[in-house]
């Protein structure tokens, strides 16, 4: 064994094959991140003459951000947004997948129904939801009222509801998409395990809890990661539904990043937010991987 590996034949093909990808990743991912990292230590604002040229300020941008109560609120909003979207979308995705995995008539239509929000562009979806949310006669409010709800109806204008409104749209939009992964995962599960479980007299609930769910763990890890990244990444609907308001109550991290970079033209601050962003995502992805790999062993 040792002798064989100590003199490996140099085969350039694998390197050649990954080369284009490496170049792309380096150019469009690694390089911008490095550049942002560099810029985040400089004060540079394009809309003010004296700060147009970058000047080194160390951790100044980071300190300014974490001393800004508005930014802290944005972090809080982002956390609520993640907590509100990720677990619920994943749960719904699994639920939908199990529903449409059964042999029922016209299951294709059911799958399509669950999946179709994914096909719509987010801006169109949000525009449709804006009408659903309309106070007085909007479909969403009419339905809620029919179900006995008599609370506030001004979903996009009420500071207590605005964030919830954008969460609802995100969950509606993404659950069907994640369902596809679960569906694929379920259909690839080995039949013999289920046969054995049936022979042992396992109930449906036991089968789901003790067999399906653990076997789908890798799928769940994968979906958790993309759901988490989606939660950071998807903001199109916020522009349409609330513009981050009222009074910034539905502003999340990426929305703020956009505002800082393109409305306030603050390159230093937006670079610092980018780095915070990348670090959080990186930390989450790595922990998630490590945890799932440990369980595997």
């Amino acid at each position: 064994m040792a002798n064989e590996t100590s003199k490996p034949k140099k085969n350039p093909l694998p390197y050649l094959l990954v080369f284009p990808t490496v170049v792309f990743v380096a150019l469009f991912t690694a390089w911008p991140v490095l550049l942002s990292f560099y810029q985040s230590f400089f004060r540079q604002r394009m809309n003010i003459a004296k700060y147009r040229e970058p000047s080194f300020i160390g951790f100044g941008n980071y300190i300014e951000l974490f001393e800004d109560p508005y930014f802290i609120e944005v972090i809080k909003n982002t956390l609520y947004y993640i907590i509100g979207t990720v677990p619920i979308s994943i749960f719904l995705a699994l639920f939908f997948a199990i529903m449409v995995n059964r042999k029922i008539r016209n299951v294709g239509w059911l799958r399509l129904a669950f999946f179709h929000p994914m096909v719509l562009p987010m801006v169109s979806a949000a525009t449709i939801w804006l009408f659903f949310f309309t106070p007085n006669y909007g479909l969403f409010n009419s339905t809620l009222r029919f179900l006995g709800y008599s609370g506030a109806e001004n979903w996009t204008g009420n500071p207590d509801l605005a964030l919830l409104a954008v969460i609802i749209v995100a969950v509606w939009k993404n659950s069907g998409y994640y369902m596809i992964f679960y569906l694929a995962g379920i259909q690839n599960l080995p039949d013999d395990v289920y046969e054995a479980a049936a022979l042992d007299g396992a109930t449906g609930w036991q089968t789901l809890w003790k067999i399906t769910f653990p076997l789908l763990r890798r799928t769940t890890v994968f979906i958790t990661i993309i759901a988490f990244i989606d939660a950071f990444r998807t903001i199109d609907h916020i522009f349409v539904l609330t513009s981050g308001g009222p009074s910034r109550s539905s502003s999340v991290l990426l929305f703020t990043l956009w505002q800082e970079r393109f409305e306030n033209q603050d390159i230093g601050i937006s670079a610092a937010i980018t780095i915070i962003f990348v670090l959080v995502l990186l930390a989450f992805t790595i922990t998630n991987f490590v945890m799932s790999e440990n369980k595997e062993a």
Partner: protein
Amino acid sequence: MRTKKVFLVLMALLLIIGLGACSPAAEPAPEEESAPVEEAAPVEEAAPAEEEAAPVEEEEEAPAEEMAEPVTFQVFYPVAVDAPIAEILNEYIEDFQAEYPHITVEPVFSGGYGDVQTAIQTTIDGGGTPPALAVMLATALYDLNNAGYISPLDSYVAGMEDGDAYIADFLPVFLDNSYAYDELWSIPFQRSATVMYYNMDMFAEAGLDAPTNWETWATAAQTLTTKDGDATNWGLQYPSGWPYWLFQPLAIGAGQNILDDDCTVVFDNPAVIEAVQFYIDLSGEYEAMPAGVQGIWGTAPTDFSSGSTAMIIHSSGSLKGIIEQADFEVGLMGLPGKEDGSISAVPGGGNFYIMSGAPQAEQDAAWLFVEFLTQPKYIADYSINTGYVASTSSSYETEEMLAHTAEVPQALSARDALQQGGAELATQNLGAVRGIFHDYLQRAYNGEMTADEAMAAAQVEADAALVDFCE
């Protein structure tokens, strides 16, 4: 083991590429960015610049062969409104090119105002050449200017046969957002106004006259609010999802606009606070409109033209759609002011900006295009076909416009309302200042703070946001 080694090699490779790209670019970056724009311009473009100036000053010395030097320039144009903007513009471009065969105009239609500005910012910041001409928000003036993105237009106007008359022809309120640092930076083109639409039939049925002050306005809205089972037909719908623009007429109507100049905002003035309170009272005291922040920009025109709401505050740009859909007499006026007989409106919309980063020849050609499009004929035509407010006085005298306003007199009401209007909020550090104002105005609307507290806090924060810009 093996995969780990490969991974390490790849990482190393990545780092090397990253560092390699990093070291040369890192240091000269600041110079590099500004250099090509400023340096290249005089050296390379000086020659064609003079040649292209020729058509403007034809009488002096305009050798025919120099005029024929072909130029192509791009114009970025926002299209996110309910009108076939691209179609209309393309027709104008054809006319222009017929008159100036050596110039080719390449229109780029994309998104809204914000998208156009973002596209141009990223192009310039990335070291690229911007389009020579763009239509962007009139209020973007200071941001664009401070970043050095735009060229002053005074020399072009001075070069015109009668430049003073050309400028004097624009409605003064539109030009308010065109001057900074005593120079002219933009030409009004695609302009609108905040106005009030009211259902004249409903008013007549209820025996009401058009409101003339806050008191008659609020009571009219109260009278016209009716319950219809579960739903309420509101007397007034007043959007406030993106509020500063729609709020400004109220403040002006109370006697104080929310800004004095680009460095001075006036949020905590008693008149402004009174205006905030009036908005709150319309729902709280008069129960004439729904309470709180209203994200109803999209639905308000439909609610109005379907007859379920008696009055809405909206853009003059919605006039065409509303008239087409409504089966009643549509009234249009400025927002009633506090004192009897006063009305007010605030201009909105976009202006032509010439980008300083474009080659001089292209900038000169772009100016010719601006001059061409601001002839009375085209301004009138554009207003008739899109619903935007025609920006020059002379355009209202054209035959087409006279015929149009005879049929749609409301178009004149929008202009008249603007005669008594004030400048739209355009300050230094606009994104931040506007954000602060929105934040606190909405807190007041939603009852989280009193009008007093909210405006005082907004003033403090906005002053702080302006310090760096206005020392």
